[in-house]
């Protein structure tokens, strides 16, 4: 048996918390008991619910939102309602969709990966580009998620359809973002309309202004020519979407069992998570 840790590390200033206005706010540590003064170290951590490798249900934002982010979801579980049997030693198919910097995964690539894989009914899904690694995250800093492969709208829709047909619940990927950086970072961190210098994320004044200008029920002010998102179409088909996993390239088997450990937040909707692949 071999264990492979697929969890993105968490550190102050991690790039994934620096490049979007609202969805993923910065990681901050405050040391309040100190080695040199107290002989012991205690830290206060400020994280986002998308910090590291997050586990994001359709109830992301709970308990402060009145219902799921989209109606008609296949699953209606918050973090503390998910049966352990859906998280521990879950049979998981590895879908290979190789991608280099800034690659955008298409629906056809999802179909081809499914065709090649040993995908069994009820499997969870790990969509692997092979791109995401711990070393890259440390080296690229804030550019990590901007250069990472991501998913087209059509890929999100297609993956959702397949997962429903195959009775899958959790989709995991080593892409830094699901929706493309061009779409999510439009008018902020990507493209000709980006803000220079790039502002700090929420709660900066610029992030507040962006929220004021955002069309209702959208993730981005991007025009249709830039993209259409796709997160909402995928989330309604899943227990959770899990992004920003790392080191999936170390998995050698076509199938693994996954141990998935989000924080047990009472009535919470999303949290940083540990992902361990168990290879027999």
């Amino acid at each position, binding site marked *: 048996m071999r*264990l492979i840790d697929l969890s993105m590390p968490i550190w102050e200033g991690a790039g994934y918390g620096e490049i979007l206005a609202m969805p993923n706010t910065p990681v901050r540590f405050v040391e309040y008991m100190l080695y040199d003064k107290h002989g012991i*170290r205690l830290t206060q*951590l400020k994280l986002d619910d998308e910090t590291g490798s997050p586990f994001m249900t359709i109830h992301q*934002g709970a308990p402060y939102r009145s219902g799921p982010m989209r109606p008609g979801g296949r699953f209606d579980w918050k973090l503390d309602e998910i049966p352990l049997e859906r998280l521990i030693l879950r049979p998981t198919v590895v879908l290979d969709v190789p991608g280099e910097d800034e690659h955008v995964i298409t629906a056809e690539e999802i179909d081809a990966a499914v065709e090649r894989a040993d995908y069994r009914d009820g499997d969870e899904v790990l969509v692997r580009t092979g791109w995401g690694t711990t070393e890259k995250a440390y080296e690229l800093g804030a550019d990590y998620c901007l250069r990472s492969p991501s998913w087209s709208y059509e890929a999100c829709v297609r993956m959702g359809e397949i997962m429903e047909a195959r009775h899958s619940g959790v989709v995991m990927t080593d892409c830094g973002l699901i929706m493309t950086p061009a779409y999510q970072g439009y008018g902020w961190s990507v493209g000709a309309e980006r803000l220079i210098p790039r502002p700090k994320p929420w709660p900066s004044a610029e992030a507040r202004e962006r929220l004021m200008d955002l069309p209702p029920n959208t993730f981005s002010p991007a025009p249709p020519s830039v993209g259409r998102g796709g997160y909402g179409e995928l989330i309604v088909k899943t227990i959770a979407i899990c992004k920003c996993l790392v080191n999936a390239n170390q998995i050698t088997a076509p199938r693994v069992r996954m141990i998935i450990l989000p924080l047990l937040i009472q009535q919470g909707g999303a949290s940083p998570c540990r992902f361990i692949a168990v290879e027999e």
Partner: protein
Amino acid sequence: MHLHELTLPLDYEYMPDEVFPTATPFVLAPREHPDKGIILGTETGTCLTLPSQFEELRKTMRLHEVPPEKLVLRETAVVSLPKEAGDEIAAAEVERALGAADVRNGDAVLLRTGWGDRGEQARPGTGYLLRTPRFSLQAAERLAAAMRERDSDLLLTDLALIAWPDKHLLPECLSLHPRPRPWPSPEAAMYLHLYSREKMEQDFAVALAFARAGVMTVKRLVNCGPIQSRRVRIVVGPLHLVRGVGSTCRVVAIEG
């Protein structure tokens, strides 16, 4: 295969561990609040603590360096030592409990007293933390030595505290009425400003005994009672903090 959830839920309305000035509150802030996201401390809820939490052991392993095999699907001996509220655990009791358990070389040890099975953690007030059964220093030293003899470096327990800070924190803080809020309240910040290394070593003597033996600890497990077997496989999932020394964590026992 039977799965047991041993994790104290992180409740945004009430956490029973926010008693001492050394704690910091768990906050789950709404999306459009300036604190959007999650605020928590090294020792929020069910938490893993490494020996490197202490300055004298700061050169030892940090969270991002812990191999998965130390925490995931690890063979674990269940050691039962039933205790009542406020009881102290004596060295002889540790000896007897270990003798009755099936502890093998390299195991993790899950020491259950029953304290996490009574629902005390869900009741308002300080009872869960301040009435927890607790180690005597001799009991901790005996258990730490026994674990070291067996190459065992992970202790999990349903006690609310590993160290019982009765030299300074308890008498000095809890005599104040109204009781000050945890850090970063002004009262807690002032208390910690005056809290010296010498006071810490006296208050945290039990935790230091485990740390000096190279033992990682997980405290505040709940619902260990339903575990039927003497041996389980344990899964511990802390946050993957770079150079961290402790973290809230998810703990699951696998039976069968």
